[in-house]
């Protein structure tokens, strides 16, 4: 099982759900996970990933405690993926 922790910024897509679990089978990378997330919460992927397939500039993603910078990052069973709104604003 892969546990995903979501930021408040996507509340309107997740109806406020902050944690989700996905069966690890078939999920090899963050890219796979993003499509699973999209199936569960339509519209959310394009809010996290831009049209060139990059993680949006002010979104950060962690696998465990390691920040990852591309969707090629490998995930595996029992991983915890946390998506956060990067510190920014004003």
């Amino acid at each position, binding site marked *: 099982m892969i546990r995903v922790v979501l*930021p408040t*910024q*996507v509340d309107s897509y997740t109806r406020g759900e902050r944690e989700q679990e996905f069966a690890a089978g078939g999920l090899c990378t963050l890219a796979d996970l993003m499509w699973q997330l999209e199936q569960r919460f339509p*519209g959310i992927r*394009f*809010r*996290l990933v*831009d*049209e*060139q*397939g*990059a993680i*949006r500039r*002010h*979104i950060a993603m962690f696998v465990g405690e390691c920040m990852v910078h591309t969707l090629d990052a490998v995930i595996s069973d029992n991983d915890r993926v946390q998506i956060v*709104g*990067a510190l*920014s*604003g004003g």
Partner: protein
Amino acid sequence: MGTQTVLVGTRKGAWVLEGKGGRGTRELKGPMHLGSVVSHYVADPRKPSYQLMSVGSGHLGPSIFISCDAGVSWSEAPKPPAFAPVATETGEGRTVDHVFWLTPGHDSAPDVWYAGTSPQGLFRSDDAGNTWQEVTGLNHHADFYQWRGGDKDGTPDGPKLHSIIVDPSNYKHLIVGMSGGGIFESFDEGGTWKPLNKGVAMDFYPPKDDGSEYEYGHDPHCIVMHPLYNNRLYHQNHCGLYRMDRDVSDVWQRIGDNMPKDVGDIGFPILVHPTDPDCIWVFPMDGSGLWPRTSPDGKPAVYCSRDGGASFARQHNGFPTSQAWWTVKRQCMAVDGSSPASLFLGNTQGQVWASYDEGNNWQCLASDLPHIYSIEVVPGS
């Protein structure tokens, strides 16, 4: 005087001002999309109660929201503007940072909308704003990179495609402004494009050795076409204020030379009177030195010409008379269709001001909103 509805887009969300002209009561409704940048909030003149809003979140990127009930409820466009995930002429994939401008299409095509983005791109929707496609004739034009420069060759918060004009007399005739590139037009609904910059100064580039003009690379701030007399164009540029009569010439004439020298002819917005093509309003800002883009000498004023730009009259009754360093952005002035026309402007201090007598007298309608990005009047309101 009827009820007027003014749509206000800000850096932190959107509001609606409803009320009667004169000194009647007004109601400020909102916020909508609190915390998001609303670059443009536009009502559809073809469909009562239909509205589009450009909504951008710093974290979540750009999107477009649609309301069918005059802003009571909103749904997100299932496919907002996005560049194709293929390399462009520069070999780089481009990403929309924000949707800067929204324009309803021609009356004969009630589901068509156009959007301008930063970095600069033109998009079209044929289903009332739900799904958007690139106008490839422009975005992938062989000369587009030369026209627009790199994505960093533009205004401080990103070069913008703006002032999308659909000619009321010819739905195939489109004009757009690029804050890094100039003015371009198409006569085949976006299939092919040509520059429209003759006569426009470009003081921020060195003069060409052969003395000729630059064909592109200009910085138009706002372009308007008169809604009834479609041969009459005006535009406020980084380098002055211009007029063009297409039935006479395709060379811009610098009418800003007729502005007072101590005020100058630099600003962002420009309005044209709904029925009189010789009547325009501009809001000059200081373009000297470091380009502060604030009211010259801290004294805000609108300037009105009623003779096509041959002369200008200062209009400031009601505005602060000193130490008011306003910036008014290019979407932040609007005029309605009433007679006399009502004018509205919003500034970066979060104030909305109105004049119900064509600019002679002004009153503040709201004073504590966030930094204002756009002001539009609901047609017929």
